[in-house]
Protein backbone atom coordinates (compact mmCIF):
# COMPACT_ATOMS: atom_id res chain seq x y z
CA UNK A 1 0.00 0.00 0.00
CA UNK A 2 1.21 3.51 -0.73
CA UNK A 3 3.14 4.90 2.19
CA UNK A 4 2.15 8.35 3.37
CA UNK A 5 4.45 10.89 1.78
CA UNK A 6 6.99 12.63 3.97
CA UNK A 7 7.54 9.70 6.24
CA UNK A 8 11.03 8.48 5.69
CA UNK A 9 10.90 4.79 4.86
CA UNK A 10 14.23 3.20 4.31
CA UNK A 11 14.20 0.97 1.26
CA UNK A 12 16.59 -1.84 0.69
CA UNK A 13 18.19 -2.21 -2.77
CA UNK A 14 16.00 -5.26 -3.33
CA UNK A 15 12.89 -3.20 -2.73
CA UNK A 16 14.11 -0.56 -5.17
CA UNK A 17 14.61 -3.19 -7.85
CA UNK A 18 11.17 -4.67 -7.19
CA UNK A 19 9.62 -1.24 -7.53
CA UNK A 20 11.48 -0.59 -10.77
CA UNK A 21 10.16 -3.88 -12.16
CA UNK A 22 6.60 -3.03 -11.19
CA UNK A 23 6.74 0.42 -12.78
CA UNK A 24 8.40 -0.94 -15.91
CA UNK A 25 5.71 -3.61 -16.29
CA UNK A 26 2.96 -1.02 -16.06
CA UNK A 27 4.69 1.34 -18.49
CA UNK A 28 5.11 -1.57 -20.91
CA UNK A 29 1.38 -2.10 -20.64
CA UNK A 30 0.79 1.57 -21.47
CA UNK A 31 2.92 1.14 -24.57
CA UNK A 32 1.03 -1.99 -25.64
CA UNK A 33 -2.32 -0.20 -25.25
CA UNK A 34 -1.38 3.08 -26.95
CA UNK A 35 1.29 2.25 -29.52
CA UNK A 36 -1.05 0.57 -32.04
CA UNK A 37 -3.31 3.62 -32.04
CA UNK A 38 -0.38 6.02 -32.39
CA UNK A 39 0.92 3.90 -35.25
CA UNK A 40 -2.40 4.16 -37.09
CA UNK A 41 -2.43 7.91 -36.48
CA UNK A 42 1.09 8.17 -37.88
CA UNK A 43 0.18 6.09 -40.93
CA UNK A 44 -2.87 8.25 -41.63
CA UNK A 45 -0.73 11.42 -41.68
CA UNK A 46 2.11 9.90 -43.66
CA UNK A 47 2.85 10.60 -47.28
CA UNK A 48 0.65 7.90 -48.94
CA UNK A 49 3.44 6.87 -51.30
CA UNK A 50 5.66 5.99 -48.35
CA UNK A 51 3.11 3.99 -46.35
CA UNK A 52 3.61 0.62 -48.04
CA UNK A 53 5.96 -1.42 -45.89
CA UNK A 54 6.02 1.21 -43.11
CA UNK A 55 6.76 -0.70 -39.92
CA UNK A 56 3.93 -1.30 -37.48
CA UNK A 57 6.32 -0.20 -34.76
CA UNK A 58 6.65 3.37 -36.05
CA UNK A 59 4.74 6.06 -34.22
CA UNK A 60 5.97 8.94 -36.37
CA UNK A 61 4.61 9.79 -39.85
CA UNK A 62 6.85 9.11 -42.85
CA UNK A 63 6.73 12.47 -44.56
CA UNK A 64 3.59 14.44 -43.93
CA UNK A 65 0.40 14.61 -45.91
CA UNK A 66 -3.25 15.40 -45.30
CA UNK A 67 -4.34 13.54 -48.44
CA UNK A 68 -5.87 10.62 -46.57
CA UNK A 69 -7.80 12.83 -44.21
CA UNK A 70 -9.01 15.21 -46.94
CA UNK A 71 -10.09 12.29 -49.05
CA UNK A 72 -11.92 10.48 -46.27
CA UNK A 73 -13.62 13.55 -44.87
CA UNK A 74 -14.84 14.54 -48.34
CA UNK A 75 -16.00 11.03 -49.16
CA UNK A 76 -19.81 10.79 -49.33
CA UNK A 77 -19.91 7.37 -47.59
CA UNK A 78 -17.80 8.66 -44.70
CA UNK A 79 -19.70 11.92 -44.42
CA UNK A 80 -23.02 10.10 -44.38
CA UNK A 81 -21.63 7.60 -41.88
CA UNK A 82 -20.60 10.40 -39.54
CA UNK A 83 -23.98 12.13 -39.80
CA UNK A 84 -25.87 8.85 -39.35
CA UNK A 85 -23.80 7.94 -36.31
CA UNK A 86 -24.30 11.37 -34.75
CA UNK A 87 -28.04 11.28 -35.37
CA UNK A 88 -28.51 7.74 -34.07
CA UNK A 89 -26.25 8.25 -31.05
CA UNK A 90 -27.77 11.60 -30.05
CA UNK A 91 -31.37 10.49 -30.43
CA UNK A 92 -30.89 7.12 -28.77
CA UNK A 93 -28.93 8.62 -25.89
CA UNK A 94 -31.60 11.25 -25.29
CA UNK A 95 -34.41 8.69 -25.35
CA UNK A 96 -32.38 6.33 -23.19
CA UNK A 97 -31.55 8.87 -20.50
CA UNK A 98 -35.11 10.26 -20.28
CA UNK A 99 -36.72 6.82 -20.28
CA UNK A 100 -34.27 5.38 -17.79
CA UNK A 101 -34.43 8.35 -15.41
CA UNK A 102 -38.24 8.46 -15.33
CA UNK A 103 -38.57 4.72 -14.86
CA UNK A 104 -35.81 4.56 -12.26
CA UNK A 105 -37.48 7.27 -10.24
CA UNK A 106 -40.76 5.38 -10.11
CA UNK A 107 -39.02 2.12 -9.25
CA UNK A 108 -36.93 3.73 -6.52
CA UNK A 109 -40.01 4.57 -4.40
CA UNK A 110 -40.05 1.79 -1.81
CA UNK A 111 -43.82 1.83 -1.28
CA UNK A 112 -44.88 1.90 -4.91
CA UNK A 113 -47.51 -0.83 -5.38
CA UNK A 114 -46.34 -3.32 -8.00
CA UNK A 115 -42.69 -2.34 -7.58
CA UNK A 116 -41.55 -5.92 -7.08
CA UNK A 117 -43.44 -7.18 -10.10
CA UNK A 118 -41.96 -4.51 -12.37
CA UNK A 119 -38.49 -5.21 -11.00
CA UNK A 120 -38.96 -8.88 -11.74
CA UNK A 121 -40.08 -8.05 -15.30
CA UNK A 122 -36.83 -6.15 -15.78
CA UNK A 123 -34.63 -8.84 -14.23
CA UNK A 124 -36.14 -11.54 -16.44
CA UNK A 125 -34.88 -9.62 -19.47
CA UNK A 126 -31.31 -9.79 -18.14
CA UNK A 127 -31.54 -13.50 -17.55
CA UNK A 128 -33.43 -14.65 -20.62
CA UNK A 129 -32.62 -13.37 -24.09
CA UNK A 130 -34.30 -15.33 -26.87
CA UNK A 131 -31.68 -14.24 -29.40
CA UNK A 132 -31.23 -12.23 -32.54
CA UNK A 133 -33.72 -13.98 -34.82
CA UNK A 134 -36.83 -13.21 -32.74
CA UNK A 135 -35.55 -9.62 -32.35
CA UNK A 136 -35.19 -9.40 -36.09
CA UNK A 137 -38.71 -10.66 -36.71
CA UNK A 138 -40.12 -8.24 -34.18
CA UNK A 139 -38.43 -5.40 -36.09
CA UNK A 140 -39.88 -6.76 -39.31
CA UNK A 141 -43.37 -7.06 -37.84
CA UNK A 142 -43.19 -3.49 -36.59
CA UNK A 143 -42.14 -2.29 -40.03
CA UNK A 144 -38.93 -0.82 -38.65
CA UNK A 145 -36.46 -2.77 -40.77
CA UNK A 146 -34.23 -0.44 -42.74
CA UNK A 147 -35.29 2.52 -40.61
CA UNK A 148 -33.06 4.52 -38.27
CA UNK A 149 -35.64 3.86 -35.58
CA UNK A 150 -34.86 0.15 -35.53
CA UNK A 151 -31.37 0.96 -34.25
CA UNK A 152 -32.46 3.87 -32.06
CA UNK A 153 -35.33 2.13 -30.33
CA UNK A 154 -33.79 -1.31 -30.01
CA UNK A 155 -33.57 -1.86 -26.25
CA UNK A 156 -33.54 1.91 -25.73
CA UNK A 157 -33.71 1.47 -21.95
CA UNK A 158 -30.85 -0.64 -20.61
CA UNK A 159 -31.67 -2.84 -17.62
CA UNK A 160 -28.21 -2.46 -16.04
CA UNK A 161 -28.18 1.32 -16.29
CA UNK A 162 -31.72 1.34 -14.91
CA UNK A 163 -30.63 -0.61 -11.85
CA UNK A 164 -27.70 1.76 -11.29
CA UNK A 165 -30.02 4.77 -11.36
CA UNK A 166 -32.60 3.11 -9.09
CA UNK A 167 -29.83 2.48 -6.54
CA UNK A 168 -28.84 6.14 -6.82
CA UNK A 169 -32.37 7.47 -6.38
CA UNK A 170 -32.92 5.24 -3.37
CA UNK A 171 -30.07 7.05 -1.63
CA UNK A 172 -31.77 10.46 -1.83
CA UNK A 173 -32.71 11.44 1.75
CA UNK A 174 -36.42 11.01 2.40
CA UNK A 175 -36.54 14.30 4.38
CA UNK A 176 -35.72 16.32 1.26
CA UNK A 177 -38.68 14.82 -0.58
CA UNK A 178 -41.01 15.23 2.37
CA UNK A 179 -39.99 18.86 2.75
CA UNK A 180 -40.83 19.49 -0.90
CA UNK A 181 -44.14 17.71 -0.47
CA UNK A 182 -45.01 19.88 2.52
CA UNK A 183 -44.24 22.93 0.38
CA UNK A 184 -47.03 21.73 -1.89
CA UNK A 185 -44.93 20.31 -4.70
CA UNK A 186 -46.59 17.48 -6.65
CA UNK A 187 -44.79 14.30 -7.73
CA UNK A 188 -43.69 15.79 -11.06
CA UNK A 189 -42.37 18.95 -9.47
CA UNK A 190 -40.48 16.93 -6.89
CA UNK A 191 -38.86 14.91 -9.64
CA UNK A 192 -37.90 17.80 -11.89
CA UNK A 193 -37.04 20.39 -9.24
CA UNK A 194 -35.61 18.34 -6.38
CA UNK A 195 -34.48 14.95 -7.66
CA UNK A 196 -33.02 15.81 -11.07
CA UNK A 197 -30.68 18.58 -9.84
CA UNK A 198 -29.39 16.18 -7.20
CA UNK A 199 -28.94 13.43 -9.76
CA UNK A 200 -26.89 15.43 -12.27
CA UNK A 201 -23.65 13.44 -11.83
CA UNK A 202 -25.53 10.13 -11.97
CA UNK A 203 -27.41 11.22 -15.08
CA UNK A 204 -24.19 12.38 -16.71
CA UNK A 205 -22.73 8.94 -16.02
CA UNK A 206 -25.72 7.16 -17.54
CA UNK A 207 -25.70 9.53 -20.52
CA UNK A 208 -22.04 8.68 -21.16
CA UNK A 209 -22.79 4.95 -20.85
CA UNK A 210 -25.47 5.28 -23.52
CA UNK A 211 -23.34 7.56 -25.66
CA UNK A 212 -20.41 5.15 -25.79
CA UNK A 213 -22.73 2.16 -26.26
CA UNK A 214 -24.62 3.69 -29.18
CA UNK A 215 -21.56 5.16 -30.87
CA UNK A 216 -19.87 1.75 -30.77
CA UNK A 217 -22.93 -0.27 -31.77
CA UNK A 218 -22.57 -1.96 -35.14
CA UNK A 219 -24.22 -5.37 -35.05
CA UNK A 220 -27.84 -4.25 -34.88
CA UNK A 221 -27.25 -1.60 -37.52
CA UNK A 222 -25.64 -4.24 -39.68
CA UNK A 223 -28.61 -6.61 -39.54
CA UNK A 224 -31.51 -4.12 -39.40
CA UNK A 225 -30.33 -1.64 -42.03
CA UNK A 226 -30.14 -2.59 -45.69
CA UNK A 227 -29.85 0.82 -47.24
CA UNK A 228 -26.14 1.69 -47.34
CA UNK A 229 -26.89 5.39 -47.06
CA UNK A 230 -28.21 4.77 -43.55
CA UNK A 231 -25.14 2.96 -42.27
CA UNK A 232 -23.49 4.43 -39.19
CA UNK A 233 -19.73 4.93 -39.24
CA UNK A 234 -18.98 1.64 -37.47
CA UNK A 235 -20.69 -0.36 -40.21
CA UNK A 236 -18.87 1.56 -42.96
CA UNK A 237 -15.61 0.92 -41.09
CA UNK A 238 -16.47 -2.74 -40.74
CA UNK A 239 -17.17 -3.15 -44.46
CA UNK A 240 -13.97 -1.42 -45.39
CA UNK A 241 -11.48 -2.73 -42.81
CA UNK A 242 -12.86 -5.96 -41.38
CA UNK A 243 -14.58 -7.39 -44.43
CA UNK A 244 -11.88 -5.90 -46.64
CA UNK A 245 -14.48 -4.55 -49.07
CA UNK A 246 -12.45 -1.91 -50.89
CA UNK A 247 -15.51 -0.68 -52.72
CA UNK A 248 -16.98 0.67 -49.47
CA UNK A 249 -14.59 3.59 -49.79
CA UNK A 250 -12.78 3.32 -53.07
CA UNK A 251 -15.77 2.95 -55.35
CA UNK A 252 -16.15 0.57 -58.29
CA UNK A 253 -15.19 3.02 -61.05
CA UNK A 254 -12.07 4.18 -59.27
CA UNK A 255 -11.01 0.67 -58.39
CA UNK A 256 -11.39 -0.53 -61.96
CA UNK A 257 -9.45 2.34 -63.47
CA UNK A 258 -7.09 2.76 -60.56
CA UNK A 259 -7.65 6.51 -60.41
CA UNK A 260 -8.16 8.96 -57.54
CA UNK A 261 -8.97 7.19 -54.33
CA UNK A 262 -7.55 3.89 -55.47
CA UNK A 263 -4.13 5.40 -55.88
CA UNK A 264 -3.91 6.27 -52.24
CA UNK A 265 -2.56 3.41 -50.21
CA UNK A 266 -5.36 1.25 -48.84
CA UNK A 267 -3.50 0.75 -45.58
CA UNK A 268 -3.38 4.50 -45.04
CA UNK A 269 -7.09 4.83 -45.80
CA UNK A 270 -7.93 2.08 -43.32
CA UNK A 271 -5.79 3.68 -40.63
CA UNK A 272 -7.50 7.02 -41.24
CA UNK A 273 -10.97 5.43 -41.05
CA UNK A 274 -10.16 3.79 -37.72
CA UNK A 275 -8.89 7.06 -36.26
CA UNK A 276 -11.96 8.99 -37.49
CA UNK A 277 -14.23 6.43 -35.84
CA UNK A 278 -12.53 6.69 -32.45
CA UNK A 279 -12.12 10.48 -32.54
CA UNK A 280 -15.40 11.22 -30.71
CA UNK A 281 -14.47 8.73 -27.98
CA UNK A 282 -11.07 10.41 -27.62
CA UNK A 283 -12.78 13.81 -27.48
CA UNK A 284 -14.99 12.86 -24.53
CA UNK A 285 -12.36 10.65 -22.92
CA UNK A 286 -11.62 13.08 -20.04
CA UNK A 287 -15.34 13.06 -19.19
CA UNK A 288 -15.42 9.27 -19.46
CA UNK A 289 -12.51 8.98 -17.04
CA UNK A 290 -14.21 11.31 -14.59
CA UNK A 291 -17.71 9.82 -14.61
CA UNK A 292 -17.22 6.18 -15.60
CA UNK A 293 -14.58 5.64 -13.01
CA UNK A 294 -16.77 7.04 -10.26
CA UNK A 295 -19.87 5.25 -11.51
CA UNK A 296 -18.05 1.93 -11.58
CA UNK A 297 -16.22 2.45 -8.31
CA UNK A 298 -19.47 3.18 -6.49
CA UNK A 299 -20.51 -0.42 -6.71
CA UNK A 300 -22.00 -0.85 -10.16
CA UNK A 301 -20.61 -4.04 -11.61
CA UNK A 302 -21.49 -3.51 -15.26
CA UNK A 303 -20.23 -0.59 -17.28
Amino acid at each position, binding site marked *: *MAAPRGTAIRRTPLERIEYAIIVTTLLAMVVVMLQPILNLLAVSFSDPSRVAGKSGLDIWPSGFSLDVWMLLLQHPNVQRGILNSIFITATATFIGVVGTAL*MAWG*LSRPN*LPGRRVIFLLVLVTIVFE*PGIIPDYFLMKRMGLLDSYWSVILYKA*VNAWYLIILVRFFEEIPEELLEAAELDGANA*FQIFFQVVLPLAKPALATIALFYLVFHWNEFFRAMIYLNDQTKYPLQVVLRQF*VVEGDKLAIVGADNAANNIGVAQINLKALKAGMIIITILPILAIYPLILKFFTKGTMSGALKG
Partner: protein
Amino acid sequence: MSSVEQNATVIARVTGNVPRSQRFANSVRRWWPYYVMLAPGLLFFLVWHYFPIWEAKMAFEQVRIIPPNLWVGLKHFQTLFASPVFYQVLANTLIISTLKILFVFPVPIIVALLLNEVRSGRLRKFVQSAIYLPHFLSWVVIAGVFIAILSPSDGAVNQITGFFGAKPVAFMTDGNSSRWVLVFSEIWRSAGWDSLLYLAAIIGIDQSLYEAAELDGANRWQKVWHVTIPGIVPTIATLFILNMGMFLSADLNQVINFLNDVNRGQIDILDTYVYRIGLRTGEYSLATAAGLFKAVFGMILILSAHFVSKRLTGKGVW
Protein backbone atom coordinates in the same frame (compact mmCIF):
# COMPACT_ATOMS: atom_id res chain seq x y z
CA MET B 1 -74.44 9.77 8.03
CA SER B 2 -74.91 9.12 11.74
CA SER B 3 -72.24 10.23 14.12
CA VAL B 4 -71.47 6.60 14.93
CA GLU B 5 -70.80 5.82 11.27
CA GLN B 6 -68.74 8.99 10.96
CA ASN B 7 -66.66 7.94 13.93
CA ALA B 8 -66.16 4.52 12.38
CA THR B 9 -64.79 6.08 9.19
CA VAL B 10 -62.44 8.31 11.17
CA ILE B 11 -61.23 5.35 13.19
CA ALA B 12 -60.88 3.26 10.07
CA ARG B 13 -58.79 5.96 8.42
CA VAL B 14 -56.56 6.27 11.45
CA THR B 15 -56.05 2.54 11.88
CA GLY B 16 -55.64 1.99 8.19
CA ASN B 17 -58.68 -0.22 8.12
CA VAL B 18 -60.16 1.59 5.12
CA PRO B 19 -62.54 -0.24 2.76
CA ARG B 20 -60.83 -1.86 -0.18
CA SER B 21 -62.27 0.39 -2.88
CA GLN B 22 -61.32 3.50 -0.99
CA ARG B 23 -57.85 2.22 -0.30
CA PHE B 24 -57.47 1.61 -4.02
CA ALA B 25 -58.67 5.12 -4.85
CA ASN B 26 -56.22 6.59 -2.35
CA SER B 27 -53.44 4.53 -3.78
CA VAL B 28 -54.21 5.65 -7.31
CA ARG B 29 -54.38 9.28 -6.20
CA ARG B 30 -51.03 8.96 -4.48
CA TRP B 31 -49.13 6.93 -7.08
CA TRP B 32 -50.51 7.74 -10.55
CA PRO B 33 -47.76 10.30 -11.34
CA TYR B 34 -45.13 7.65 -10.68
CA TYR B 35 -46.84 5.18 -12.98
CA VAL B 36 -47.02 7.85 -15.68
CA MET B 37 -43.26 8.34 -15.36
CA LEU B 38 -42.64 4.59 -15.32
CA ALA B 39 -44.81 3.92 -18.33
CA PRO B 40 -42.49 4.78 -21.26
CA GLY B 41 -39.62 2.72 -19.88
CA LEU B 42 -41.86 -0.17 -18.96
CA LEU B 43 -43.41 -0.09 -22.42
CA PHE B 44 -39.92 -0.35 -23.92
CA PHE B 45 -39.19 -3.43 -21.83
CA LEU B 46 -42.46 -5.08 -22.76
CA VAL B 47 -42.05 -4.38 -26.46
CA TRP B 48 -38.32 -5.04 -26.92
CA HIS B 49 -37.89 -7.87 -24.46
CA TYR B 50 -41.22 -9.62 -24.14
CA PHE B 51 -42.50 -9.56 -27.73
CA PRO B 52 -39.32 -11.37 -28.88
CA ILE B 53 -40.03 -14.11 -26.35
CA TRP B 54 -43.37 -14.53 -28.09
CA GLU B 55 -41.70 -14.43 -31.51
CA ALA B 56 -39.40 -17.22 -30.36
CA LYS B 57 -42.27 -19.69 -30.75
CA MET B 58 -41.04 -19.79 -34.33
CA ALA B 59 -38.58 -22.43 -33.12
CA PHE B 60 -41.53 -24.81 -32.93
CA GLU B 61 -43.06 -23.84 -36.26
CA GLN B 62 -42.57 -24.27 -39.96
CA VAL B 63 -42.33 -20.76 -41.35
CA ARG B 64 -44.58 -20.37 -44.37
CA ILE B 65 -44.64 -17.51 -46.81
CA ILE B 66 -48.34 -17.08 -46.28
CA PRO B 67 -49.18 -17.15 -42.56
CA PRO B 68 -50.15 -18.85 -40.37
CA ASN B 69 -47.05 -20.90 -39.66
CA LEU B 70 -47.36 -24.61 -39.15
CA TRP B 71 -46.78 -26.09 -35.68
CA VAL B 72 -44.13 -28.79 -35.90
CA GLY B 73 -43.20 -29.29 -32.25
CA LEU B 74 -39.61 -30.29 -31.58
CA LYS B 75 -38.69 -31.06 -35.17
CA HIS B 76 -36.15 -28.23 -35.48
CA PHE B 77 -34.52 -29.20 -32.21
CA GLN B 78 -34.12 -32.74 -33.49
CA THR B 79 -32.52 -31.41 -36.67
CA LEU B 80 -30.26 -29.23 -34.57
CA PHE B 81 -29.12 -31.99 -32.23
CA ALA B 82 -28.48 -34.28 -35.19
CA SER B 83 -26.27 -31.74 -36.92
CA PRO B 84 -22.48 -32.07 -36.51
CA VAL B 85 -22.02 -28.33 -37.09
CA PHE B 86 -24.02 -27.62 -33.96
CA TYR B 87 -21.67 -29.69 -31.82
CA GLN B 88 -18.70 -28.02 -33.42
CA VAL B 89 -19.90 -24.49 -32.66
CA LEU B 90 -20.88 -25.61 -29.16
CA ALA B 91 -17.38 -27.01 -28.61
CA ASN B 92 -15.81 -23.82 -30.01
CA THR B 93 -17.94 -21.71 -27.68
CA LEU B 94 -16.93 -23.76 -24.64
CA ILE B 95 -13.24 -23.81 -25.61
CA ILE B 96 -13.11 -20.05 -26.21
CA SER B 97 -14.91 -19.33 -22.92
CA THR B 98 -12.52 -21.65 -21.07
CA LEU B 99 -9.47 -19.99 -22.64
CA LYS B 100 -10.84 -16.60 -21.63
CA ILE B 101 -11.44 -17.68 -18.04
CA LEU B 102 -7.94 -19.15 -17.81
CA PHE B 103 -5.96 -16.45 -19.56
CA VAL B 104 -8.02 -13.26 -19.55
CA PHE B 105 -9.66 -13.37 -16.15
CA PRO B 106 -6.49 -13.25 -13.97
CA VAL B 107 -4.85 -10.36 -15.87
CA PRO B 108 -6.84 -7.44 -14.39
CA ILE B 109 -6.24 -8.83 -10.89
CA ILE B 110 -2.49 -8.68 -11.47
CA VAL B 111 -2.81 -5.22 -13.02
CA ALA B 112 -4.71 -3.97 -9.98
CA LEU B 113 -2.11 -5.42 -7.60
CA LEU B 114 0.67 -3.73 -9.60
CA LEU B 115 -1.16 -0.41 -9.76
CA ASN B 116 -1.67 -0.51 -6.03
CA GLU B 117 2.08 -0.68 -5.46
CA VAL B 118 2.72 2.55 -7.37
CA ARG B 119 3.55 5.26 -4.85
CA SER B 120 3.35 8.30 -7.09
CA GLY B 121 -0.29 9.30 -7.54
CA ARG B 122 0.53 11.06 -10.82
CA LEU B 123 2.18 8.01 -12.34
CA ARG B 124 -0.72 5.82 -11.28
CA LYS B 125 -3.25 8.25 -12.82
CA PHE B 126 -1.27 8.33 -16.06
CA VAL B 127 -1.10 4.55 -16.32
CA GLN B 128 -4.80 4.21 -15.53
CA SER B 129 -5.85 6.82 -18.10
CA ALA B 130 -3.87 5.02 -20.78
CA ILE B 131 -4.86 1.43 -20.10
CA TYR B 132 -8.59 2.14 -19.71
CA LEU B 133 -8.86 3.51 -23.26
CA PRO B 134 -9.30 0.26 -25.26
CA HIS B 135 -12.41 -0.61 -23.22
CA PHE B 136 -14.24 2.28 -24.90
CA LEU B 137 -13.43 1.29 -28.47
CA SER B 138 -15.86 -0.79 -30.51
CA TRP B 139 -14.99 -4.34 -31.53
CA VAL B 140 -14.94 -3.16 -35.14
CA VAL B 141 -12.17 -0.71 -34.26
CA ILE B 142 -10.31 -3.29 -32.18
CA ALA B 143 -10.49 -5.80 -35.01
CA GLY B 144 -9.11 -3.10 -37.31
CA VAL B 145 -6.29 -2.43 -34.85
CA PHE B 146 -5.48 -6.15 -34.60
CA ILE B 147 -5.55 -6.61 -38.36
CA ALA B 148 -2.87 -3.91 -38.48
CA ILE B 149 -0.80 -5.22 -35.55
CA LEU B 150 -0.88 -8.78 -36.86
CA SER B 151 -0.28 -8.02 -40.51
CA PRO B 152 2.27 -10.53 -41.84
CA SER B 153 4.06 -7.92 -43.97
CA ASP B 154 4.56 -4.96 -41.62
CA GLY B 155 2.52 -5.54 -38.43
CA ALA B 156 4.19 -4.81 -35.12
CA VAL B 157 4.06 -8.40 -33.87
CA ASN B 158 5.70 -9.91 -36.93
CA GLN B 159 8.28 -7.11 -36.92
CA ILE B 160 9.26 -8.09 -33.39
CA THR B 161 9.25 -11.86 -33.95
CA GLY B 162 11.08 -11.25 -37.23
CA PHE B 163 13.81 -9.44 -35.31
CA PHE B 164 14.41 -12.68 -33.43
CA GLY B 165 14.48 -14.60 -36.65
CA ALA B 166 10.96 -16.02 -36.77
CA LYS B 167 9.08 -16.31 -40.04
CA PRO B 168 6.06 -14.01 -40.42
CA VAL B 169 2.69 -15.58 -39.54
CA ALA B 170 -0.67 -14.42 -40.92
CA PHE B 171 -2.34 -14.63 -37.51
CA MET B 172 -5.74 -13.39 -38.67
CA THR B 173 -6.19 -16.12 -41.24
CA ASP B 174 -4.18 -18.85 -39.53
CA GLY B 175 -6.61 -21.33 -38.03
CA ASN B 176 -4.17 -22.31 -35.28
CA SER B 177 -3.85 -18.82 -33.86
CA SER B 178 -7.36 -17.43 -34.23
CA ARG B 179 -8.52 -18.50 -30.75
CA TRP B 180 -5.46 -16.86 -29.26
CA VAL B 181 -6.19 -13.71 -31.23
CA LEU B 182 -9.55 -13.66 -29.45
CA VAL B 183 -7.84 -14.13 -26.08
CA PHE B 184 -5.26 -11.40 -26.68
CA SER B 185 -7.69 -8.89 -28.13
CA GLU B 186 -9.92 -9.45 -25.10
CA ILE B 187 -6.94 -8.83 -22.80
CA TRP B 188 -6.04 -5.71 -24.77
CA ARG B 189 -9.58 -4.42 -24.44
CA SER B 190 -10.44 -5.25 -20.85
CA ALA B 191 -7.30 -5.86 -18.77
CA GLY B 192 -7.00 -2.19 -17.88
CA TRP B 193 -10.61 -1.33 -17.31
CA ASP B 194 -11.52 -4.48 -15.39
CA SER B 195 -8.67 -3.83 -12.95
CA LEU B 196 -10.70 -0.86 -11.73
CA LEU B 197 -13.15 -3.13 -9.92
CA TYR B 198 -10.33 -4.87 -8.06
CA LEU B 199 -8.64 -1.57 -7.33
CA ALA B 200 -11.88 -0.35 -5.78
CA ALA B 201 -11.92 -3.45 -3.59
CA ILE B 202 -8.27 -2.93 -2.58
CA ILE B 203 -8.93 0.68 -1.61
CA GLY B 204 -11.73 -0.59 0.62
CA ILE B 205 -9.34 -2.76 2.66
CA ASP B 206 -8.87 -1.64 6.24
CA GLN B 207 -5.57 0.28 6.46
CA SER B 208 -4.87 -0.91 9.99
CA LEU B 209 -4.35 -4.42 8.61
CA TYR B 210 -1.36 -3.14 6.63
CA GLU B 211 0.00 -1.29 9.64
CA ALA B 212 -0.31 -4.42 11.75
CA ALA B 213 1.47 -6.45 9.05
CA GLU B 214 4.25 -3.86 8.91
CA LEU B 215 4.71 -4.01 12.67
CA ASP B 216 5.09 -7.76 12.28
CA GLY B 217 7.86 -7.03 9.78
CA ALA B 218 6.02 -8.12 6.63
CA ASN B 219 7.63 -7.21 3.31
CA ARG B 220 5.84 -6.13 0.13
CA TRP B 221 4.98 -9.65 -1.03
CA GLN B 222 3.88 -10.81 2.40
CA LYS B 223 1.54 -7.83 2.65
CA VAL B 224 0.10 -8.57 -0.80
CA TRP B 225 -0.29 -12.26 0.00
CA HIS B 226 -1.68 -11.98 3.52
CA VAL B 227 -3.66 -8.73 3.38
CA THR B 228 -4.46 -7.52 -0.15
CA ILE B 229 -5.39 -10.79 -1.80
CA PRO B 230 -7.62 -12.03 1.05
CA GLY B 231 -9.23 -8.57 0.94
CA ILE B 232 -10.24 -8.88 -2.70
CA VAL B 233 -11.20 -12.56 -2.73
CA PRO B 234 -14.93 -11.72 -2.50
CA THR B 235 -14.64 -9.46 -5.57
CA ILE B 236 -12.67 -12.11 -7.44
CA ALA B 237 -15.30 -14.71 -6.55
CA THR B 238 -18.19 -12.48 -7.65
CA LEU B 239 -16.60 -11.62 -10.98
CA PHE B 240 -15.53 -15.20 -11.58
CA ILE B 241 -19.06 -16.45 -11.04
CA LEU B 242 -20.42 -13.66 -13.25
CA ASN B 243 -18.07 -14.79 -15.98
CA MET B 244 -19.23 -18.36 -15.58
CA GLY B 245 -22.78 -17.09 -16.06
CA MET B 246 -21.78 -15.78 -19.51
CA PHE B 247 -20.05 -19.01 -20.46
CA LEU B 248 -22.23 -19.74 -23.50
CA SER B 249 -21.87 -16.25 -24.94
CA ALA B 250 -18.15 -15.98 -25.76
CA ASP B 251 -18.98 -12.49 -27.07
CA LEU B 252 -20.71 -12.25 -30.46
CA ASN B 253 -19.60 -8.65 -31.02
CA GLN B 254 -15.99 -9.69 -30.74
CA VAL B 255 -16.04 -12.95 -32.65
CA ILE B 256 -18.03 -11.72 -35.61
CA ASN B 257 -15.26 -9.23 -36.38
CA PHE B 258 -12.51 -11.84 -36.28
CA LEU B 259 -14.37 -14.60 -38.09
CA ASN B 260 -13.49 -15.49 -41.67
CA ASP B 261 -13.79 -18.50 -43.92
CA VAL B 262 -10.36 -19.81 -42.94
CA ASN B 263 -10.80 -19.79 -39.15
CA ARG B 264 -14.49 -20.75 -39.08
CA GLY B 265 -13.64 -24.22 -37.80
CA GLN B 266 -11.95 -22.75 -34.72
CA ILE B 267 -13.94 -19.68 -33.71
CA ASP B 268 -17.46 -20.12 -35.07
CA ILE B 269 -19.55 -19.85 -31.87
CA LEU B 270 -23.24 -20.45 -31.11
CA ASP B 271 -24.16 -16.80 -31.69
CA THR B 272 -22.36 -16.47 -35.01
CA TYR B 273 -23.90 -19.79 -36.08
CA VAL B 274 -27.38 -18.50 -35.25
CA TYR B 275 -26.64 -15.31 -37.15
CA ARG B 276 -25.36 -17.15 -40.19
CA ILE B 277 -28.01 -19.82 -40.59
CA GLY B 278 -30.78 -17.40 -39.54
CA LEU B 279 -30.09 -14.17 -41.33
CA ARG B 280 -27.78 -15.30 -44.09
CA THR B 281 -29.16 -18.68 -45.13
CA GLY B 282 -32.72 -17.98 -44.01
CA GLU B 283 -33.26 -21.08 -41.88
CA TYR B 284 -35.21 -19.00 -39.40
CA SER B 285 -36.76 -21.76 -37.36
CA LEU B 286 -33.57 -23.76 -36.97
CA ALA B 287 -31.66 -20.62 -36.02
CA THR B 288 -34.32 -19.69 -33.48
CA ALA B 289 -34.14 -23.18 -32.03
CA ALA B 290 -30.36 -22.85 -31.65
CA GLY B 291 -30.89 -19.41 -30.10
CA LEU B 292 -33.42 -20.83 -27.65
CA PHE B 293 -31.04 -23.62 -26.71
CA LYS B 294 -28.45 -20.99 -25.82
CA ALA B 295 -31.04 -18.79 -24.07
CA VAL B 296 -32.30 -21.60 -21.84
CA PHE B 297 -28.88 -22.92 -20.84
CA GLY B 298 -27.59 -19.37 -20.53
CA MET B 299 -30.47 -18.64 -18.16
CA ILE B 300 -29.68 -21.69 -16.05
CA LEU B 301 -26.02 -20.60 -15.89
CA ILE B 302 -26.78 -17.00 -14.96
CA LEU B 303 -29.34 -17.98 -12.34
CA SER B 304 -26.95 -20.52 -10.81
CA ALA B 305 -24.21 -17.91 -10.90
CA HIS B 306 -26.48 -15.43 -9.18
CA PHE B 307 -27.53 -17.72 -6.36
CA VAL B 308 -24.09 -19.21 -5.82
CA SER B 309 -22.60 -15.73 -5.72
CA LYS B 310 -25.29 -14.51 -3.34
CA ARG B 311 -24.65 -17.38 -1.02
CA LEU B 312 -20.86 -17.12 -1.09
CA THR B 313 -20.28 -13.39 -1.19
CA GLY B 314 -23.62 -11.77 -0.44
CA LYS B 315 -23.51 -10.06 -3.86
CA GLY B 316 -25.55 -11.32 -6.75
CA VAL B 317 -25.52 -10.58 -10.44
CA TRP B 318 -27.93 -7.67 -9.91
